[in-house]
C-alpha cells in the first residue's frame, strides 16, 4: 500500500486507487460530482481538485483532479491550501450560475449532493449578474420525474443509463452551456433500471415520481433496513415511511448483493403496501358471504375453535412469506400437515436446485462475483425479467475483457472512458439460450431461442463438449453442435466462468444440464447460479421436510374430506394451480383461514381472513437465490389489526399449544427455534443482529436526527403527543435518538453523515470507498460449496418437433406484472402490458393468425381470449405467454394449448 501525503499528513492508501477514492477512504471530505464509485472517473465536473506538488521542495504545485490522478508512492497533495479550495469554490459557483433557487420546492432538497457540496466549499454569495438558462422538462413515464433546469451537467445520468445500464433512449443533447439530458421526445424511459437515476443524479433533475407526488423530505422519513420482495435476489433496500405510508424505497448498500443499484420493480413495486384494498381487520364470513370485521381476540377464539383438538388441520405456507412465519405455521400444524405453498412441479424444481447448490461443488456467486465473471452461459432465462438486478450485474461482467485489455496497457479500471474506448465492442463472452429474445441480447456473443427440451439438449451438448465422459447428444443439428462447441470453448478458456439457469423454463432437464456444465468445468472459480421465482423460494425449499405432503396430496386430502381447517399463509393459490383444482381444494377443506397482507382471490374464499403486515411493517428472514439469509425490519407499525403473520401464528399457538409456543415470546426466539429445527437453516440467526444488539448501549434509530413534527403529526387527532412505540423485537427504535456512526450493514436504515445529507454519505459507512460496510456485510450465506457428490445426468430430452394442432405454452416473464405484488403499486401498474401471446411467423401462418388478432387459447379446462403478437424469436411450435394471462399465473410445465382465431378477430 503506497503512502501519499495530503496537506503534509501521510496516508496509507490502497494500491491502484485514484486520489479522490483515497481521500474519501481516509475520511477526508473532498467534494466531487461526476465520479461514482461504481462508474469510475471521467473528469467532467472538475470539483475534486487538489494541488499536486512535484516533491517536497515544490511549493507552487499544480491543480489536478483527484479522480483522474492515480495514487503513487510518496505523491504529495494539498487539499486545504488556498489554491485548491478556491478552485473548488469557483467550480461550485460556476455550477450555480444556471441552477435555480428552488431548493424549497425541490424534491432533492435536504438530501442533495449539490447542496452538500455547496455548503462544503463555502460558496454563499452570488456575483453572477447574467440570466439563467432554462430548459423544458420531459415526461419520462410514471417512475422518474424530470426537472432539467436543476442540471449541473455532471454527465452521471447518461453514463449510468447508457454505459452502465445499457439503456439507449436517454442521451446528452446539445453542446456548450446548453447541454440537455433527456430523451429524443417525451416518453417512458425504456430501461428496467431507470429508477437508479434518482439516486445517481446529484441534484434534483431526476427524482422519484411517486415520492414527488406524495412528498416527504428525507429528514422526515422513518426508515428501516429491508430486503426487496420483488424477486429472489434479495436486494437490500431502505424503506422510508411517513404518516403510515411507504413513501419510497432506496438502495441499501451491500457490496456483495445489489451494490449501489436496484431494479425498478424493486424500487417502485413496494408501493403495493399503500394499496387501499389491503385488509385492515380480521374478517369473519357471514351467511350473506360477506365479511364482518371482528376483534382480534374473537379472531383468535374462532381459530382456537376451528383448530382445536379433534380437528384435522392442514396448512399451506408461502415462498413469499418469511422463514419465521412459515416455520411457525409448520410448528402449529405439524410437518405432516404442512406444505410450502408451491405446486408440485415448482416444489420439485426448487428441491432440485437446493440439492444442486448444496452438492454440486460449485460456487453460487454473489452479484458481485457475477460482475467479475469472464464467460457466462445462460440457459432458459430472460434474466432481466426474472432476476432483474442480475442482468445489470451481467452487463458489467461482459466488461471483464475491457479490464483485461486495460490492464495490459496499465490503464486503471476507474479510467472509465479510456477503458471503454480501448475495448470498443470487445466483450467477454455471454451466451444466451432462452425461450425468446431477451433484454441482454445486445451484449451477448450469441443468442438463440429454443423450447425447453432443446435448451436442455444444447446444454448437455455443451457439457459433453467439456467432459467427454458424458454421453454425446445424438442427432443435434450441426449448427447447434458447433454452437455448443463454441460455448464450451469460451467457458473453458475463461478464468471465472458462470453458468446461469433457473426455474423460468419449468424444466428439470434445463436445470440439470446447467449443473452438468458447471461440474464439467475444471476451474476452481467456476460459478453456477439459478434464477428463482420468489423472495423466499429457496428458503421454503430449505425448510422443506421429507415428510411434508405435496400440494397435490393436500388437494387430495381436502377433496376426500380429510381436512377440517385449512390455514393459508400469504399465498394466492390461484397462482399455483389450475382454477378448478384450487376451487375444489378450498371448497372441500371445511374452514379456510387465510392470512395475507394483500387481498387475493384465495382470501375471498376464506371463512376467516386475517390481515398481516407487509414486508415494510414486519421483520422476517428471507433466503435469496444466492442462499443468503437476510433480515428485513419494519419501517413502521402496521395499521389497525394488521400484524406480522408470525405474530398471529404465535398468538394462535400460545392459545392452542402453550407448551410449545410460550417459549417463543419474541421474534428472535422463533428464528432460533427454526434454526434449531432445521439443519439447513442453522445459521439464519446470523442474518442480522438480534433485538438485544446495542451500539454503546444504544439502539439504532429509525428517524434521522432532524426528524420534524413528531408532536404535530397527529395533532389533528389528539393534541397529546403519543408515546413512541417500543420495539421489542428488533435492535431498531422508533425514535431519533440512538447510536450513530459505524454499524452493521444489516442495520443501516438510512445513510446520513455530518456534511453529507445525500445518499453519497454511504462512503462514510464503508470500510473504504466501494468496499464493504465497516460494520459488516448484511446477510449470511447458508450454502458454501461442498465437496462435489456424484451426479447422474437426466436422460437427454427428445428433439422437440412443432405440431400443427397445439402449441407448447412457454411463460414469458415481465419485470412489470409477472410477480404477485409489484403490479399493485399504481406507478408499476401503468407499465404492465396487456395479456398477450407471442408466436413466430411460421406458427402464426400455420394457424392463420396475424399480429394484433384476437385468438382463443385453450388447454385443460381453461379458455381465454388473447391478442396475438408476432415475435420471430419464439421457437416454432411454441407460444410465449405473459404471466398475467388470465388464469395462467403458473401454468404447469409442458402445457400444450390449442389456439384458434377468435370470432371477429382475424379476418382470414
Amino acid at each position: 500500500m503506497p503512502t501519499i501525503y495530503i496537506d503534509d499528513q501521510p496516508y496509507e492508501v490502497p494500491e491502484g486507487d485514484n486520489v479522490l477514492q483515497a481521500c474519501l477512504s481516509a475520511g477526508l471530505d473532498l467534494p466531487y460530482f461526476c465520479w461514482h464509485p461504481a462508474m469510475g472517473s471521467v473528469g467532467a465536473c472538475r470539483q475534486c481538485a487538489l494541488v499536486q506538488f512535484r516533491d517536497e521542495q515544490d511549493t507552487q504545485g499544480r491543480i489536478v483532479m483527484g479522480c483522474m490522478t492515480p495514487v503513487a508512492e510518496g505523491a504529495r497533495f494539498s487539499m486545504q491550501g488556498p489554491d485548491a479550495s478556491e478552485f473548488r469554490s469557483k467550480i461550485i459557483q460556476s455550477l450555480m450560475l444556471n441552477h435555480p433557487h428552488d431548493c424549497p420546492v425541490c424534491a432533492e432538497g435536504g438530501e442533495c449532493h449539490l447542496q452538500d457540496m455547496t455548503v462544503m466549499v463555502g460558496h454563499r454569495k452570488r456575483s453572477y449578474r447574467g440570466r439563467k438558462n432554462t430548459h423544458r422538462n420531459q415526461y419520462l413515464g410514471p417512475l422518474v420525474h424530470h426537472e432539467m433546469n436543476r442540471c449541473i451537467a455532471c454527465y452521471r445520468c447518461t453514463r449510468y443509463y447508457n454505459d452502465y445500464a445499457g439503456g439507449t433512449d436517454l442521451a446528452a443533447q446539445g453542446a456548450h452551456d446548453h447541454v440537455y439530458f433527456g430523451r429524443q421526445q417525451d416518453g417512458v424511459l425504456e430501461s428496467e433500471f431507470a429508477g437508479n437515476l434518482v439516486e445517481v443524479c446529484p441534484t434534483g433533475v431526476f427524482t422519484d415520481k411517486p415520492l414527488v407526488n406524495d412528498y416527504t423530505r428525507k429528514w422526515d422519513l422513518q426508515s428501516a433496513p429491508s430486503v426487496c420482495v420483488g424477486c429472489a435476489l434479495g436486494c437490500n433496500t431502505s424503506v422510508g415511511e411517513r404518516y403510515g405510508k411507504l413513501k419510497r424505497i432506496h438502495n441499501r448498500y451491500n457490496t456483495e448483493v445489489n451494490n449501489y443499484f436496484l431494479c425498478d420493480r424493486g424500487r417502485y413495486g413496494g408501493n403495493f403496501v399503500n394499496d387501499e384494498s389491503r385488509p385492515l381487520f380480521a374478517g369473519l364470513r357471514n351467511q350473506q358471504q360477506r365479511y364482518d370485521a371482528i376483534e382480534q381476540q374473537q379472531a383468535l377464539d374462532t381459530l382456537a375453535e376451528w383448530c382445536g383438538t379433534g380437528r384435522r388441520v392442514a396448512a399451506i405456507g408461502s415462498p413469499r412469506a418469511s422463514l419465521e412465519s412459515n416455520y411457525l405455521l409448520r410448528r402449529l400444524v405439524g410437518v405432516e400437515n404442512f406444505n410450502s405453498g408451491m405446486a408440485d412441479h415448482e416444489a420439485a424444481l426448487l428441491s432440485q436446485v437446493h440439492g444442486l447448490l448444496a452438492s454440486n461443488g460449485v460456487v453460487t456467486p454473489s452479484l458481485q462475483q457475477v460482475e467479475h465473471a469472464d464467460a457466462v452461459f445462460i440457459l432458459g432465462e430472460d434474466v432481466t425479467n426474472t432476476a432483474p438486478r442480475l442482468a445489470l450485474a451481467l452487463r458489467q461482467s461482459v466488461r471483464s475483457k475491457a479490464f483485461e485489455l486495460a490492464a495490459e496497457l496499465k490503464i486503471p479500471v476507474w479510467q472509465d472512458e479510456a477503458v471503454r474506448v480501448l475495448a470498443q465492442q470487445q466483450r467477454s463472452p455471454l451466451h444466451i439460450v432462452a425461450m425468446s429474445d431477451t433484454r441482454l441480447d445486445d451484449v451477448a456473443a450469441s443468442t438463440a431461442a429454443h423450447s425447453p427440451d432443446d435448451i436442455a439438449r444444447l446444454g448437455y451438448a455443451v457439457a459433453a463438449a467439456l467432459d467427454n465422459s458424458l454421453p454425446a447428444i445424438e442427432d443435434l443439428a450441426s449448427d447447434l453442435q458447433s454452437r455448443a462447441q463454441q460455448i464450451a470453448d469460451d467457458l473453458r478458456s475463461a478464468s471465472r466462468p458462470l453458468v446461469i439457469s433457473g426455474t423460468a423454463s419449468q424444466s428439470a432437464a434445463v436445470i440439470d444440464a446447467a449443473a452438468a456444465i458447471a461440474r464439467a468445468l475444471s476451474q476452481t472459480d467456476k460459478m453456477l447460479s439459478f434464477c428463482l421465482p420468489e423472495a423466499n423460494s429457496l428458503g421454503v425449499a430449505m425448510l422443506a421436510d421429507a415428510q411434508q405432503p405435496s400440494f397435490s396430496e393436500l388437494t387430495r386430502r381436502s377433496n376426500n374430506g380429510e381436512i377440517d381447517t385449512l390455514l393459508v399463509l400469504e399465498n394466492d393459490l390461484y397462482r399455483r394451480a389450475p382454477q378448478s383444482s384450487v376451487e375444489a381444494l378450498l371448497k372441500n377443506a371445511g374452514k379456510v383461514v387465510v392470512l395475507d397482507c394483500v387481498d387475493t382471490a384465495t382470501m375471498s374464499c376464506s371463512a376467516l381472513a386475517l390481515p398481516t403486515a407487509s414486508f415494510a411493517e414486519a421483520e422476517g428472514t428471507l433466503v435469496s437465490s444466492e442462499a443468503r439469509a437476510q433480515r428485513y425490519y419494519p419501517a413502521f407499525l402496521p395499521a389497525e389489526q394488521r400484524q406480522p403473520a408470525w405474530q398471529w401464528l404465535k398468538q394462535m399457538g400460545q392459545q392452542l399449544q402453550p407448551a410449545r409456543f410460550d417459549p417463543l415470546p419474541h421474534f428472535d426466539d422463533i428464528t432460533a427455534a427454526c434454526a434449531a429445527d432445521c439443519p439447513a437453516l442453522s445459521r439464519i440467526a446470523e442474518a442480522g443482529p438480534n433485538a438485544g444488539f446495542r451500539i454503546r448501549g444504544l439502539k439504532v434509530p429509525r428517524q434521522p436526527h432532524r426528524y420534524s413534527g413528531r408532536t404535530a403529526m397527529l395533532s389533528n387527532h389528539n393534541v397529546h403527543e403519543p408515546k413512541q412505540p417500543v420495539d421489542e423485537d428488533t435492535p431498531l427504535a422508533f425514535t431519533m435518538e440512538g447510536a450513530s456512526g459505524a454499524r452493521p450493514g444489516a442495520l443501516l436504515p438510512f445513510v446520513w453523515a455530518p456534511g453529507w445529507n445525500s445518499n453519497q454519505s454511504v462512503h462514510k459507512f464503508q470500510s473504504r470507498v466501494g468496499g464493504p460496510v465497516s460494520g459488516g456485510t448484511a446477510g449470511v450465506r447458508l450454502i458454501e460449496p461442498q465437496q462435489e457428490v456424484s451426479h447422474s445426468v437426466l436422460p437427454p430430452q427428445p428433439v422437440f418437433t412443432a405440431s400443427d394442432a397445439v402449441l407448447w405454452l412457454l411463460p414469458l416473464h415481465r419485470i412489470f406484472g409477472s410477480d404477485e405484488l409489484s403490479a399493485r403499486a399504481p406507478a408499476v401498474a401503468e407499465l404492465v402490458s396487456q395479456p398477450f401471446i407471442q408466436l413466430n411467423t411460421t406458427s402464426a401462418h400455420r394457424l392463420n393468425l396475424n399480429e394484433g388478432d384476437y385468438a382463443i387459447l385453450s388447454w385443460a379446462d381453461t379458455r381465454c381470449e388473447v391478442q396475438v403478437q408476432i415475435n420471430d424469436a419464439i421457437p416454432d411450435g411454441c407460444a410465449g405467454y405473459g404471466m398475467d394471462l388470465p388464469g395462467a399465473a403458473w401454468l404447469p410445465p409442458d402445457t400444450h394449448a390449442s389456439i384458434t382465431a377468435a370470432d371477429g378477430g382475424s379476418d382470414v
Partner: protein
Amino acid sequence: MSADSTSTYLSAAECTEIDHEISHAPTPAAVAIDALKIVQAHRGWVSDDSLTALAEYLGMSAAELDGIATFYSLIYRKPVGEQVISLCDSVTCWIKGYDRLQAHISGRLGVGLGETTADNKYTFLPAPCLGACDRAPVMMLGDDLHQDLDEKKLDQILQSGSFNKGGEV
C-alpha cells in the same frame, strides 16, 4: 431534393450514399455524422421523422443520434431557407465591420440572426471563423465564400441570388 424533408423513409439515393460510408466503417453507427450530412444535403434539414428513420437505419437510438445531431452546429434540426447566409462573426471579421454588415443584412432581409425570411429564401446565421481572415469580412452563401465584404458588395450578392446550393458532403 429527391426526398421530402418530412418523409419518414430514406430515399434510395440517400441509402446508397450512406451505405457507401458504412462500407468502410467498423459499425453503421460510426457513420452517424456523415449520414446526417447526407440526409441534410438531400432534404435541407433533419426533421424528427428523418432522424428517427436514420437512427433505425444505423441501428442506433433516436436519442443517441439526436445527441449527435444537436451537438454539431452544421446539422440543422429546424428547417432553413433555400439559401443559408453564414456571416463570419469571429475576431478579424468583427474588427473589420461584422456588426455593420450584420445590421445591413438584417435590415435588407428583415430577419435577425437565426431567422428565415418570410419568403423562405434565406436563413441568416452567424458563422465561426471561416479561415479567410486575410480577406475579412467574409461570409458564405450556400457553398460559396464571399470575401472583402462591404454593404455594396452585399447588395450585389443578395440581388444576383445566384448561389451554390450545397450538397457536397
